[in-house]
């Protein structure tokens, strides 16, 4: 059996308030099927509280040839990193 299907990227939010995290993709021919398939493939062991599915073709990605111009300029600008601040002892998770 063959039928037309798209690829959808799957994002799972593990707990309320946290960001959705990319976990993989599924094939599906409509959005309900994409959500059902994502649920079956990625959340069978209590992994999530919310699922997003997005058609892969709707994602805009930077190209690898752009990576120099996109990311390298940050290298010599240390002042963009908050490394000059002294952290108080009590502050955790920073």
């Amino acid at each position, binding site marked *: *059996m063959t039928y037309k299907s798209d690829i959808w990227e799957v994002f799972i939010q593990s707990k309320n308030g946290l960001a959705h995290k990319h976990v993989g993709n599924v*094939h599906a021919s409509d959005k309900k*099927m994409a959500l059902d398939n994502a649920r079956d493939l990625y959340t069978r062991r209590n992994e999530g509280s919310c699922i997003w599915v997005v058609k892969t073709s709707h994602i805009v990605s930077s190209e690898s040839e752009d990576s120099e111009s996109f990311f390298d300029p940050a290298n010599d600008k240390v002042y963009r990193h908050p490394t000059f601040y002294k952290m108080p002892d009590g502050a955790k998770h920073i």
Partner: protein
Amino acid sequence: MSTLLKYTLRIADNSLILGQRMAEWCSKGPTLEEDIAMSNIALDLFGQANGFLEYASKIDGQKTADDLAFKRDASNFYNFCLVEVENGHFGNTMIRSLLFDTFYLLFYKELSKSQDENLSALAFKSLKEIKYHFRHSQNWIIRLGDGTKESNKKVQESLNNLWKYTDEFFEIDNVDQIMIDQKIGVNTSLLKKEWTEIIESTINEAKLIKPSTIKMITGGRDGKHSNKLSSLLKEMQYLPRKYPNAKW
């Protein structure tokens, strides 16, 4: 056999036999995703069957849940005739699931109010799973019915073929009546209206036509089955029967 035991076995057997049918799809699904979905549903159903069989074993006092699953013959299984029907094509399996899931959704909702704490707890736990099974089969029937000419024709044929098994859901016999009187069992005859409404609205959305009333086939709940159930059991029970002391 006590009334409560038979009542519990009927519930367990529906899940067990349908689970076995769904498991037959494993590695043969139309897509990888659907293969996993159907295997997941099969596992849910085995889990439900296990819960009810454990309770049946407790009522029985002698046989274990495994004995009940693997050492009974077809004539001692009390599942609906519908669930033993062979899978056929994918659309056929989904029609069978839709008819069953819709009923079990309503059934478990009522059973979760049972005066029998074990049955009500098992029903409550199973209800969450059946909600998803229903959503899965309903989405597929709408998709296939309202899909191509060919998919519509195929699921319409399946609907026409399987319709004759649906009256069994709503039958009330002596066992049911005693359980209803004790506020343990569900009066399924009262569920027919809502079941019909859900099925009608689903098949309307799926651009399918409700089959006309035909001669109904029942009897599964009293152990009267097609020879398809014997073939299913032969495969399902092969290992424990051939190697009675096998451990895994």
